[in-house]
């Protein structure tokens, strides 16, 4: 350990870190310690070129860049001295020299580090009236990204991302000196499964996604922490929403799961949250209101119980831990066969994308569900969560299906109950490394739909199953889960930290 002093505050930091790394690990960077920086990014190699992060170190004659200077025990650092501020103002002035200052038509406005830092540390008046360097405006670098060359400050974050993270290397800085321009290599397009991350890391409005560009000013958006449900990784995201509409997903940093990235597929999955939803309850081919569908399902379940006929349950790896806990308890109370779930598999890679295309297979396993895509046994009634292959249910008389999307409705479903997507309720998923992670609702459906756990509870109540008198309450259920299942001990929704926690 090394002890360093920054602006009079003393910190214990790990040896071998750079000053910026140490501050980042302490979680004080840009909070307690304001140390503006452009080219440095916690998950990319050090570039050391923007020169904005210069600090004064006692005993060292020249200012040093915090992003490439290793900490030393006893180091005394100043980030607010006149010399530092002067150097910073110099960098800001020079960066703005060739910048178009077209903030009113720039999509980055509101989350632009050039705008922010110029405001906080910059010079207020331009000292030059010289023409700016010519550069291209708004052209496509590939299928997902639009580039405004004029706004680029050449921090090379995007270049390093493509070399080091996506490992596709489409971008480079061409020419040299003040003629330097960021471009794709001749004949190459910026096209890789992670391409849109470059828009997040670009500190200015040079790289924007075609998808989000010009949709909404960011200051109208608020961010709700959630989890991507497109594969077993469970990348942490923020859903940016306004007026009950979601405009984008952006990665939320979690060093144990997705670093600061998400894949393009996951990012675009917000579209599926509102498209093709199952909006109406059904009994047979008849549209009914929700209560009627619930009571029909409850009646059929009651008849099966009374007739002592077999009942089966098909779980879903898209349901939350809490949903699945409720389901598992119902299985116990009904005394039916263990529930099963099936996983759809697809492409995977070494970075984030997992082959299992569902968010909670590990949660289902941890709660005692068995993975299977075999046909279920003969049964009077099947309670089915989510999409199911029709062949699995050939031996079932009555099929009650809880689905969020039209396309998931099985042709043989007798009762259909619309359920909420994970965007619309509170819960947790367990990712492929058995890490429980909480997601929060950021949309409210404009039709009647309940969460899996809620709908299941209401069906059990309608069927008058003993012990199912109380309505569903996710917080209470999560506490019960934490008490009942040792793997989830201490991991109820209120105790689960923002970055999630491994199952016990």
């Amino acid at each position, binding site marked *: 350990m090394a002890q360093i002093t920054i602006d009079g505050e003393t910190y214990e930091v790990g040896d071998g870190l750079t000053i910026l790394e140490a501050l980042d690990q302490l979680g004080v960077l840009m909070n307690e310690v304001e140390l503006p920086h452009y080219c440095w990014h916690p998950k990319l190699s*050090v*570039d*050391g*070129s*923007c*020169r*904005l992060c*210069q600090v004064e170190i006692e005993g060292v004659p*020249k*200012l040093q*860049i915090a992003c*490439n200077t*290793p900490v030393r025990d006893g180091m005394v650092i100043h980030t607010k001295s006149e010399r530092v501020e002067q*150097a910073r103002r*110099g*960098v800001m*002035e*020079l*960066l703005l*020299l*060739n910048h178009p200052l077209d903030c009113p038509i720039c999509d980055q406005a509101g989350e632009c580090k050039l705008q922010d830092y110029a405001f906080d540390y910059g010079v207020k008046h331009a*000292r*030059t009236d*010289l023409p700016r*360097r010519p550069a291209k405006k708004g052209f496509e670098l590939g299928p997902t990204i639009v580039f405004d060359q004029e706004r680029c*400050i*050449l921090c090379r974050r995007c270049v390093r991302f493509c070399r080091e993270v996506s490992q596709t290397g489409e971008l480079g*800085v061409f*020419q*040299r*000196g*003040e*003629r*330097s321009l960021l471009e794709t290599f001749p004949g190459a397009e910026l096209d890789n499964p992670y391409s849109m991350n470059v828009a997040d890391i670009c500190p200015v409005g040079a790289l924007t996604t075609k998808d989000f560009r010009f949709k909404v000013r960011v200051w109208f958006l608020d961010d709700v922490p959630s989890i991507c449900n497109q594969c077993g990784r469970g990348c942490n995201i923020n859903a940016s929403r306004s007026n009950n509409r979601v405009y984008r997903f952006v990665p939320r940093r979690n060093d144990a799961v997705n670093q600061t990235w998400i894949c393009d597929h996951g990012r675009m999955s917000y579209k599926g949250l509102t498209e093709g939803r199952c909006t109406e309850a059904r009994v047979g081919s008849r549209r009914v209101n929700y209560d009627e569908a619930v009571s029909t399902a409850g009646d059929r379940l009651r008849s099966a119980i009374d007739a002592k006929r077999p009942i089966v349950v098909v779980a879903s790896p898209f349901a939350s831990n809490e949903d699945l806990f409720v389901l598992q308890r119902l299985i116990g109370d009904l005394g039916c066969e263990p529930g099963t779930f099936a996983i759809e598999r697809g492409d995977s890679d070494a970075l984030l994308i997992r082959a299992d295309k569902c968010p909670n297979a590990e949660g289902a396993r941890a709660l005692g569900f068995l993975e299977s895509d075999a046909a279920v046994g003969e049964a009077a009634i099947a309670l089915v969560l989510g999409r199911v292959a029709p062949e699995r249910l050939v031996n079932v008389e009555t099929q009650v299906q809880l689905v969020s999307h039209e396309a998931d409705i099985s042709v043989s479903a007798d009762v259909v109950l619309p359920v909420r997507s994970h965007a619309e309720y509170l819960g947790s998923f367990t990712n492929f490394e058995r890490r429980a992670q909480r997601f929060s609702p950021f949309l409210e459906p404009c039709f009647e739909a309940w969460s899996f756990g809620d709908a299941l509870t209401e069906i059990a109540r309608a069927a008058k199953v003993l012990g199912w008198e109380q309505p569903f309450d996710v917080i209470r259920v999560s506490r019960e889960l934490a008490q009942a299942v040792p793997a989830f001990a201490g991991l109820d929704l209120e105790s689960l930290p923002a970055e999630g926690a491994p199952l016990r």
Partner: protein
Amino acid sequence: MQTEPYTKLYLSEHYGNEAFRTLAGYEAAGGFQGLRAALARDPEEVTELVKSSGLRGRGGAGFNAGLKWSFMPKGDERMKVLVCNGDESEPGSFKDRMIMQQGPFQILEGLLIAAWATGARRSYIYIRGEYQYPIQCVRKAVAEMYDKGYLGRDVFGEPGFEHDIVVHSGAGAYICGEETGLLESLEGKKGQPRKKPPFPAQHGAFGLPTTVNNIETFAHVPYILSRGVEWFRGFGTEKSPGTTLFGVSGHVERPGLFELPLGTPLREVIAKAGGVRNNRALKAVIPGGMSMPVLTPSDLDVPMAEEFLSERGTHLGTGGVMVMDDTTCMARVACVISYFFRDESCGQCTQCREGTGWIHKLCERIEAGRGRPRDLELLESVPALMEGHTICAFADAAAWPIKGLLRHFRSDFECHISEGSCPFPESFEL
């Protein structure tokens, strides 16, 4: 082309003699005695000796060569590398070319001595791509060494002393002369200086421990070993021993190279070059290559050694002395200098990329008579934004000469602004 300096001392004694460019001729003239003397000593002793000789790097920064060698890590299993910097791209410098052409074996001997001292297994000689003939000369010398069995294994009969030398041609960028820009270029990458740490001694060429020295620096080394530290210190000053090849250019009667002891007064250097052309009055002298601030006639007595020049706000640099007579328009000089630096900046660092462009645009506008009074203030403050804040010293090199010109010749610039035209009808054309 000059085949020998106009004045010669030990380094260039045999320059111009065709035989000296062959291995046999070099040996006949006493070549490799320095290496033999080195091999008779412990490597550490050789490093100490070079350190105590006070030999300073001739590539511009003037760092003690032996001290630099001592930074090479000891007890490190990795292969160690020497790099000989033959990029010679500082405008006003043309000494390394002469050495490569006339004394290529001096360089190779110096490299072998350094290899013995530092434990380096391989040397790269990086030569600027425009230097096709020097490249040929050095390649030929290396080939002769291999033919004779002087390179490869058991060098000079010293069991276990292995050394290979690779000659690498650059592709023409000033910044590839900066040692880490050179290393990137050598590795086949875009020539952009590296941030430090890590320093080359820890992580240099191809990630290996590396020492970079200038061509001339290596060429002096054999004499220190063969003739001794005392003898070497007999030339030059206390803090800057030895000779150097001053390259005098510009408005003199006899431009060219002159081997003179360091510390020779500027006046004498110019006199050797025949004085200012056409008996005109001297206006300014750049003492060490274009990136160094100018001196004025009042500085003529300054001894040409770093310790004296730095007192006058400038540096010895590469010893490229550029003489300007009274016809010269300093606003034009600023224009030429700023054009060069704007063009050659690698463009990584904000201050250098943007500052060099800004300075040049200002200089251009002032020179063309379109400057505004405020432009002079800017021309003073923009270099201050750049200096000391960047990855490499290029930004300093771009800032210093402009600062120097403004300090000494502000009125030239003011004239352009107030008159709207150039007051020097006979000045060189842009």
